[in-house]
C-alpha cells in the first residue's frame, strides 16, 4: 500500500462543474508529469473552451492559443525547445472542429508532442452545442431534435483519422470508472514516454462526462458513456511505439 496524495502541480482547486471529467484528467496528467520528473520542464498549450480553466490551477508553463490552434502553438514551442515536454490539452470542439487542421497536421508531420483531447460530445463552455463528436441522435442546444447525420455528417472519430498515420502513440481512454481511470493513466504515461524518448506524435482521446450540458445526473452520465459512447468510440491502445496494435 502506498500514499495517494494530490499532485503538487494542482496548485489550486479546479474550476470545473460538478461531475466534470476534466478534473480527473487534470489529476492523471499531473500525476504522470510528476512521476516522470517533468513538472519543471513542461510547457502546455491550450486554447479555448472549458480546458482553459486549468491555466490558473495546474502549475506548469502555459500558452493560451487562439481557438483551435493549440497544436500549432505547441509545435512552435517544441521545435525551438526540443528539450521541453510539450503537450496540448483541448476539448473536442476546439481540437476537432475549428482546430482539426492544426491537430491533424501535427500528427501528419509526426510532431514530437503529446495531445490530450477530451471528448465529451459537446461544446461545454458555450453551453452544450453540437460538436464533431456528438453522437447520432444526441440532443444538444444546436441539435434540439437529436443530431441528424444526414445533415451534419457522421460523428468524427479522431482515432480512426490518426490510425493510418505514422505516429508514435495513439490511445483512447475514459474517466467513466475507477478501472477506466487507472487504464487512462497508463495511456497518458505511455504518451509522454513516447515524446520524451523522441518517438513522435502521441495522442490520447479521453471520453469524459459533462453532466451540466448533457442535463443528466453523474450516474446517468456514466451510464451514457458505458452504453452509448463507448460502442461508437471504443477504448484501447491503437498505436504503440509507432506500430499499429490489434485493437
Amino acid at each position: 500500500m502506498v500514499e495517494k496524495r494530490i499532485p503538487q502541480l494542482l496548485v489550486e482547486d479546479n474550476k470545473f462543474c460538478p461531475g466534470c471529467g476534466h478534473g480527473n484528467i487534470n489529476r492523471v496528467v499531473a500525476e504522470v508529469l510528476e512521476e516522470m520528473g517533468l513538472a519543471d520542464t513542461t510547457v502546455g498549450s491550450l486554447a479555448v473552451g472549458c480546458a482553459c480553466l486549468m491555466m490558473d490551477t495546474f502549475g506548469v508553463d502555459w500558452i493560451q492559443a487562439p481557438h483551435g490552434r493549440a497544436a500549432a502553438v505547441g509545435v512552435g514551442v517544441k521545435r525551438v525547445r526540443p528539450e521541453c515536454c510539450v503537450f496540448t490539452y483541448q476539448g473536442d470542439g476546439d481540437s476537432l472542429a475549428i482546430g482539426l487542421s492544426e491537430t491533424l497536421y501535427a500528427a501528419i508531420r509526426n510532431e514530437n508532442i503529446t495531445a490530450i483531447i477530451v471528448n465529451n460530445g459537446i461544446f461545454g463552455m458555450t453551453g452544450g452545442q453540437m460538436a464533431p463528436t456528438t453522437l447520432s441522435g444526441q440532443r444538444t442546444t444546436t441539435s434540439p431534435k437529436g443530431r441528424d447525420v444526414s445533415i451534419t455528417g457522421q460523428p468524427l472519430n479522431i482515432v480512426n483519422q490518426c490510425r493510418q498515420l505514422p505516429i508514435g502513440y495513439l490511445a483512447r481512454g475514459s474517466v467513466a470508472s475507477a478501472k477506466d481511470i487507472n487504464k487512462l493513466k497508463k495511456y497518458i504515461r505511455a504518451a509522454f514516454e513516447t515524446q520524451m524518448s523522441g518517438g513522435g506524435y502521441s495522442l490520447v482521446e479521453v471520453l469524459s462526462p459533462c453532466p451540466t450540458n448533457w442535463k443528466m445526473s453523474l450516474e446517468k452520465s456514466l451510464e451514457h458513456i458505458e452504453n452509448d459512447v463507448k460502442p461508437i468510440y471504443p477504448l484501447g491502445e491503437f498505436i504503440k511505439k509507432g506500430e499499429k496494435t490489434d485493437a
Partner: protein
Amino acid sequence: MPLQLMKGNHALSEAAVRAGCRFFGGYPITPQSEIPEYLSARLPQSGGIFLQAESELAGINMVYGAAAAGFRAMTSSSGPGFSLLQEGISYIASAELPAVIVDVQRYGSGLGDISQAQSDYFQATKGGGHGDYKCIVFAPASVQESADLVVEAFDKAEEYRNPCIILSDASIAQMVEPVLLPEERGIDPDKAWAVRGKHGGEFKRVTSTMYYIEDFDAYIKNKYDTMAHNEQRWESVHTEDADVVLVAYGISSRICKEAVSEARAQGIRLGLIRPITLWPFPVNAFSGLEHVKAFMTVELSALPRLDEDVKLACEMRVPVRHFLGGVSIPDSSVITEAAIAILKEQR
C-alpha cells in the same frame, strides 16, 4: 563587408537571420514566396527552424509558440494570407510577445492579383485583427531598407514586446539592388518571460496580459502612446519651402522622389514626406510646414487609404488630395502634373 546584389525578399530574409531570427513558419503565396524559399535553406544552417505550415493560421500560431518560448520568430505572407494572419497577430499582441510579420502587398481585395499594390494599409496600421492593439509598421522603399528595417523590427518587437509588421510590396520585394547586409548577431532566448518549463520557479502563463495587469486600460494606452511618441520614422525631401508636399511610402515614394526632382527642375516647389513607419504615423513630419498649400498622397491602390492619416496629421489646415496608381505604376510626370493642377487650384 561589400555591397552585393540581392532581391528584396532575399535581403530581408538574410537580414532576419542575421538579426537572430531562428524560427519561420509560413505558407506559400506570391509575391512573398522567396522569403520561405530562402529561409528553408538558410535557417537550418544557423541552427534555426523552418517549417512550412499547412496554412497561414497555423504559421502565425507556430510563430506565437516560438516567440513565447523566447526565440526571435517571423512569418510572411501577402494580401489574402495576411488576412488569415490577423487572428494570430491579435493574440501575439494581447500576450505581449515579440514577433515580426511581413506583408508583401499585392493588388486588390479577394484573390486580387499578384502585381504590386499598397492596398493593405488599413489592415496593417489600424489593427487588422480584433481588439485594442497596434503594430509598429515599417515600410521599406528599397532593398537596403528591406534588410535594415527587418533588423529594426526585431529589436523594436522585443523592446516593446509587441508584434512589428514589415509592409512591403511586390516591387520592393522583387527588385534587385545593391545591399549592405547587417552583421550577424547572437541570440538570447532565455528571457525571464519565456515559457520553457518553470525550472523550480513560478509557472508562467502566456495569454492576454489583461488578466494579470492592474489598471490594464491605462497600462495598455500608455504602452501604445509611448510607441506612438518615440517610434515615428520618416524622410523629408525639400519640404522646407514646398508649396505642395507629396506623401508616399514604399514603391510609390520612389516615383514621387523622381517627380520632386522633375518639378524642381521646372521651378515648381514640390516636396515629399516619406513615412518609414506607417504606425506610428509620422505626424511630427508635418509640424513647421505652415507654408505648404496642399498635400497629395500617392498610393498604388484603387481606393485612398493614406490620405486619412495625412488629413489627421495636418489637422485639415490645407487641402489633402490623393493620387491613386491603382493596378499600374504611374509615371513620375503624371504625378508632377497632378501636383501642378492642385497648385493652380490653390491660387
